[in-house]
Every structure is written in structure tokens, then in C-alpha cells.
């Protein structure tokens, strides 16, 4: 039992451990960064603790993902009901459009309206992360065999019962895959928040660009990559049950 548990959760554990090591002990690698950036005075980003940045990063991504999941799944459910079916093509297209729109542009447009800070980045991530969730929820629900739905109706299940007991459980793996894609993309995209005053793991990157400090950029990028890998491996674990 414990053996299976360790094997299954090995990869998530490894990535999380590496991420924590990166946050807590970046200064241990100072010689490496010194070699990378010999001219700068500081080579390890220390303005804000990495753990704090990680926490803020996770918070922004989590809020955006939760909202995107809620909106995306509810939206997709709404347009697959008989009453909302007319809007299915529209919603599918709008969701696609959301992803072709660069997040930077969303930020640029959102800041004048919403001001600097965390709000515009949450909005940008929400819009950007909506598509994979809407698309996968639609694919998951539309992919259910018509005969299963016919039988469900024929047996006398109500619309709500079919949704809860048949459609959502059967579509769940596909929906989860959509959330996984959405979250992974947004972990990287969230770094943009640093440009509009939402402090997170993007800070070292922006700061590195502004000050010409490659070491900072590498540190930010490294931690974001590790975070993405850690979260992705947790999703992989959840979806392969």
C-alpha cells in the first residue's frame, strides 16, 4: 500500500521538493550565478523572499483557475442543454478567440480600466485560461455516446440527474485535462503580472530585464518552470487514476 503510494506520488513529490529547494536555498548556487553574471553586485534576487513570491504566484493562478473552471464548465454545460444549444457555436468561437488574444494585450487594455495590481492579471489569466476548459468540457460532454444518453432519458432520468450522474462523470477526465492545460499555461503567463505591479515569480525576471541581470531572469524562469512541472505532475497523478 505505502509502496504503491510512494511510486504514484513520486514525480509530484520530486518536483515539489526541487521547487522548495529552489525557493529556500537559491543562495547556495551563488557561485553558478556569479559565473553567469560576473559584473553585477548581487547575483541572487533578494528583494522579496522567493517563498513569498511563490505564494503570490500560486494565489493569482489559483484564483484565475478557479474562476475559469467555474465559468468554463458552467458555460459549456449551459450551451449543451436543450435551451442553450443555440449559443454553442458562439461560445466555442468566443472561447477560441480568447486564446488568440495575447495576454499582454489583455493586460494593456485592462490596466486603464482596472488599475495596476492583481486584478488585471487575474482577468487576463481568466480569459486566457478559459478556452482549454470550455473546449474540453464541450468535447467531453459531446463525446458521450448518444445511446447512453438515450437510455438515460428512456429510463426516466431527469435532465439534472443525467447531468450529475452520467454526463459530468463521463466527461470528467476530459474536463480535468482541460483544467490541467489551462493551469499549466497560466503559471507561465502569470509572470506578466509583474509588469503591472502584481508581485509574483515574474518579479525577478522583470527586474533582471530592467537591470540587465541575467541571473535574476534565470532564477525567476527556473522557479516558474519548476512550479509548472510540479503542478502538472499533480494533475497527471489525479487524471491517471
Amino acid at each position: 500500500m505505502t509502496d504503491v503510494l510512494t511510486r504514484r506520488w513520486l514525480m509530484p513529490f520530486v518536483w515539489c521538493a526541487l521547487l522548495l529547494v529552489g525557493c529556500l536555498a537559491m543562495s547556495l548556487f551563488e557561485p553558478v550565478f556569479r559565473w553567469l553574471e560576473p559584473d553585477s553586485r548581487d547575483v541572487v534576487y533578494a528583494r522579496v523572499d522567493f517563498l513569498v513570491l511563490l505564494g503570490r504566484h500560486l494565489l493569482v493562478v489559483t484564483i484565475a483557475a478557479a474562476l475559469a473552471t467555474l465559468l468554463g464548465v458552467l458555460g459549456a454545460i449551459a450551451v449543451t442543454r436543450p435551451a442553450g444549444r443555440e449559443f454553442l457555436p458562439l461560445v466555442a468561437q468566443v472561447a477560441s478567440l480568447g486564446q488568440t488574444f495575447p495576454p499582454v494585450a489583455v493586460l494593456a487594455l485592462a490596466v486603464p480600466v482596472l488599475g495596476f495590481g492583481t486584478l488585471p492579471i487575474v482577468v487576463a489569466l481568466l480569459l486566457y485560461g478559459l478556452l482549454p476548459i470550455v473546449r474540453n468540457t464541450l468535447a467531453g460532454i459531446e463525446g458521450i455516446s448518444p445511446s447512453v444518453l438515450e437510455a438515460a432519458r428512456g429510463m426516466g432520468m431527469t435532465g439534472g440527474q443525467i447531468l450529475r450522474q452520467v454526463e459530468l462523470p463521463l466527461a470528467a477526465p476530459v474536463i480535468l485535462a482541460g483544467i490541467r492545460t489551462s493551469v499549466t499555461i497560466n503559471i507561465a503567463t502569470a509572470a506578466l503580472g509583474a509588469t503591472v505591479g502584481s508581485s509574483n515569480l515574474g518579479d525577478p525576471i522583470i527586474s533582471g530585464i530592467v537591470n540587465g541581470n541575467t541571473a535574476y531572469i534565470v532564477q525567476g524562469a527556473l522557479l516558474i518552470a519548476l512550479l509548472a512541472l510540479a503542478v502538472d505532475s499533480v494533475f497527471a497523478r489525479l487524471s491517471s487514476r
Partner: protein
Amino acid sequence: MIELIHITKRFDHTVAVDDVSLKIDGGEFCCLVGTSGCGKSTTLKMINRLIEHSEGEIHIDQKPIRSFREDVLRRRIGYAIQSTGLFPHWTVARNIGLVPRLLKWPKSRIDTRVEELMSLLGLSMADYADKYPDQLSGGQAQRVGVARALAADPDILLMDEPFGALDPITRETLQLELRDLQARLGKTIVFVTHDMDEALRLADRLVVMHEGRIVQQGHPLQLLREPANDFVASLLGGEDRGLKEAALLPVSERMVPLGAGGVARERIDQTASLREALSVMLWRRVERLAVVDDDDIPIGELNFRRLVGARVND
């Protein structure tokens, strides 16, 4: 009792079912047959309101079906389809217990009922209860489908080509079991098929549909002997109708008492059909068969002239 009174169904501008009236008595096995697109499935689905009829009225036990809520109506009517429509994420036992659960039966009663149905359909509880539909063969899945349709003990069972996707041997086994089941449980069954042999074998009442209308209805033998027109005649097998009729009649119907000429060497069971008897005669090249009972004891004789029903003076 199911009664369709001047039922019409239009999809946009096409008329799928055109002024159909049909009365199916309680305990009757009614087969709807016809070519693809003749409206037989549509007619079936209008009975449990999976498709709403455009005109006319459908009554079940004297009450119009629109006086019930859709889901309430459907829970009272068993429904089985060709592709089974079993829920892939539920075990066999859970699939079978679906309607009782919808009806909020207590758990112990559902468990007993599931067990009862599984043994009724020859599925051992130990082997199949916890299996998932994708682990079943086509025949097993269809048995589960039928068990699920019977779960809440409905008076009426609607079946839409339930055995259409099965191999001939499994299909025949299930047909015989269904016939047997219906005789024991006294359900009213409305059964759609395009397999004429299946329809002839199962039906008390055969309803032939063509282009949305009922062309003829009645007992299978009656339709075989007096088809209303060429369409019915060709649908029922054209020149093969003689054999199809023979398949419906038991040997006991034409046998004569044992004569003085001694017992014939080749034997046939008294419950066998005349068609089987004919086949034995052709195969063994004999004109006489001894008819035996279940214990293999000769109780009569069947000769070729009697088998074909030749009149005495011919």
C-alpha cells in the same frame, strides 16, 4: 394496454408517422416491422415520449400519456435498445438498479431485485455484478440491458432492435429466453425489428409498417397466409413464406397416430417445427418420421403428405 389513436409525427416538413392507430392488449407481444425509415422506431419512441407525437393521442391503461410527467411515465415503462446504452462508468449491478434507485426504493430492496434479475437472465452474481459494461460480450451486455429494463417491474417493455447487433446464435438464444420470460411475467412488449424471422418467432401481433403507415396487422400466421398486398408478401419472405409458416407450426399439429406399418427409423421431437421436420426428411431422404415425446418414446407419426398439408384427394 397501449392505444395509439390517429397518431401523426412530423419532423419539420416530412411526415415520419402518418395517422397510425394501434391497440396493443395487456400481455401481448407486439412486433413492429418494416424497412428502414418506415416509422417503426419513431412509433415506439412516441410511447415513452422520447419523441413527442404531433397529432392524435396515445393512451396507456386508458390514460393519455401526456397526463404524466415525462420521467414518471418512463420509469413505469421498460426500455431496451440495440446499443444497450449501459452506463460505461457504472458496474453491471448499478446499471441494473438504475430505475429502482430513481424510484427511491430502499437499498435492500434494490439489492434483492438486482440479484433476482441477474439470475433470471442467467448472469451469475459473483461473476458479473461488479464488472463494467466494456468487460462484457455483446450478448451479456444485452442481457444486462434487458435486466435493467425489467428492474422496476414495469407492465410495459419497449424494445428497439435489442438483438440487432448480436451474432445469430446468441440472438436466437436471447429470443427464446425473451419469449419464455414474457410468457412467465405477462409483460406487454412492443418490439421493433427488421429481422422478419425474429418478428415471426416472437410476435403475437405483427404490425407491418411502410412509409409511416400501418399496412397490415394481425397474428403472424394470418399475415403469412393472407398478406394484404405484394409489399407485405415480399417483406414476409416472398416464396419463402411456406417455410416461414412451417417454422411457426409444431410437429404435433400434423402428426397422425402410430400406424400398422411399424415405427419409422428417423425421429423428431413433438415440439419441433414442421420446418425442422421437413429438413430432417430432406437430409435423411425419408418420407416418414416417428414423432417422439420428451422421453424419446414414439407417440405418433408424420409423413410427407401430412407435413405439407396435402388434401386427401390431391
